[in-house]
């Protein structure tokens, strides 16, 4: 009997393979392979993407040594590291608290009003990144065209425009990048928490109201305790996201709104080193590999904490 392609496709064993093959291919090419290649590049002195010249040379851990050396002695790199820590720490708090507060606040006001404003808070996340960057470029602009500057001058709080991204070191640029990324991150928590609250039976709240509870008491004594898993979820997810995000602050540094040292995080630094300025891919790859390891570990811990097993239910049937 001839074994045609059709028969192959119908064969039960390969059925599932066909369905997941496209995903597998993409995952291999764009996740697994890049990690492997980054590891390889980190052991080469690759510069300017001059593959022919540098790719064949292995220089061992030199790039890693350089990186750690710079971390210890180069003030610029030290500041990038510091910026990363401050950025992640503070933005994380803002994102989680902000999302929580928004979800709680919109619960206690009319639905129409809430949905309008929840949608507005999605704008930072959904808007084109270039447009978003443009908005804050003008908002925080150092001259008198800056919205913040003109607002504060109008109120009489300052006499001259301040170059927020350069004059107030380090909290000027730090505040800007925290603010810009914070607005994007808040929407994530807001959505998760809003959904979680809507799943809480209304009767609990009514009973509390009848007992005379205030909004604050309902929030702290009923809602938050029931949302522990969701809060944990948002914290861990946001932590990972903040570790690796850089698109929203890229242009702010590129356009000179913020000082490079204090406006660059680790992930942005990797991109900068690889694609702009000195284009030292070997170094960028080394820094990248370290970041991937940290991110991978955190990602795994995240899943363990959140109970990965519970998220999977076996399909039914033996077919």
């Amino acid at each position: 009997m001839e074994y045609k392609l059709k028969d192959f496709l119908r064969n039960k064993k390969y059925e599932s393979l066909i369905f997941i093959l496209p995903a597998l291919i993409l995952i291999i090419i764009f996740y697994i392979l890049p990690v492997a290649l980054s590891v390889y590049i980190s052991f080469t002195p690759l510069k300017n993407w001059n593959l022919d010249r540098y790719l064949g040379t292995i220089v061992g851990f030199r790039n890693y040594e350089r990186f750690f050396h710079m971390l210890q002695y180069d003030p610029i790199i030290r500041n990038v590291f510091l910026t990363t820590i401050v950025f992640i720490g503070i933005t994380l708090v803002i994102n989680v608290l902000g999302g929580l507060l928004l979800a709680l606040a919109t619960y206690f006001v009319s639905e129409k009003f809430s949905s309008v404003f929840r949608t507005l808070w999605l704008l930072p996340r959904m808007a084109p990144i270039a447009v978003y960057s443009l908005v804050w470029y003008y908002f925080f602009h150092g001259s008198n065209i800056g919205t913040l500057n003109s607002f504060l001058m109008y109120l009489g709080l300052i006499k001259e425009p301040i170059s927020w991204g350069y004059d107030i070191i380090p909290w000027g640029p730090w505040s800007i990048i925290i603010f810009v990324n914070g607005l994007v991150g808040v929407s994530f928590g807001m959505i998760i928490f809003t959904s979680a609250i809507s799943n809480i039976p209304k009767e609990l709240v009514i009973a509390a109201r009848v007992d005379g509870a205030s909004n604050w008491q309902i929030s702290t004594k009923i809602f938050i305790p029931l949302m522990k898993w969701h809060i944990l979820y948002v914290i861990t997810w946001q932590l990972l996201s903040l570790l690796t995000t850089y698109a929203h602050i890229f242009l702010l540094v590129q356009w000179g709104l913020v000082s490079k040292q204090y406006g660059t995080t680790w992930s942005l630094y990797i991109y900068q080193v690889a694609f702009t300025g000195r284009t030292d891919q070997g170094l960028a790859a080394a820094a990248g590999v370290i970041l991937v390891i940290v991110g991978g570990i955190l990602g795994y811990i995240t899943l363990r904490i959140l109970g990965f097993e519970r998220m999977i239910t076996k399909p039914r049937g033996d077919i």
Partner: protein
Amino acid sequence: MSLRDVEVRARKTEAIIALAIILATSPIIIGFSLIILSSFSKSMVTNFDPSSFYPTLENWINLFQGRSAAVGGLREDILKYTLNTAVVALGVSLVVTLVGTMSGYAISRMNFRYRKHFLLLILLLHAFPGSVLIVGVYFIYRLMSPIAMGSITTFSFFYVIIARASLEIPMAIWLMKGFFDLIPWEVEWAALIDGASRLTIWRKVMLPLVKPGIAAILLFGFLAGWQDLIYVRTFLAEKTLATFIEYNLGTLEFAEMPLVAAAATLYLLPTIIFFITSQHLLLRVSLAGLKR
């Protein structure tokens, strides 16, 4: 949901909370509005100075005529850039949807040997954003470019689309899995007993029943591709609205800034439109990954 119908307290607290929300949201409202407004003015109005607002359609005219550089008279084809952005967005949308619906179905309904491992992989990738892998992704781009056989532009489009789509794959698979999980087992078993193959069931029974999910992913994928900056600037041989804005901010004279604002407003338009028309879908998509 809110508590309006059971409100036993004074309306006063509600008004205060509403005011607080408005205050918190004001930077977003102000920031975006000023840019949109600036596109209709002779000079940027970002500084609350009413005198700088001189209404004009000049910027828009210039934009569409391609006159963006004051010096050298270089013509920039904004329509082409818009088209490029749309092509990338559409491509990402289609790839993400196709891969998501196929893999999501398999994970939800088929018990194959490495299912658990595959699911763990997806969740891990979902948790770990892939944009930091861009050094490796670019390396592969360089390695693969000989395939282009002369048409580097087409190849770059192709590459940007699948590279950017891959970033969204884990989330798309997880989202579609959630939708497929909701379909009763019996409907699928009935089809199996009726004699259908898995592929037929997927096409003729399952996909029609997850239409909201498909709509959500198409939308979400489109927006992801539309808004992208890093990938298009790294890989695409042509400009999109994003890279246009990036380059022109630095090179333009101060007086020409409103033109960039016009480009930004144009760029923002589809986002706004999708916002208004598919609010509930956006919300649904954003809940992906939540399993409780």
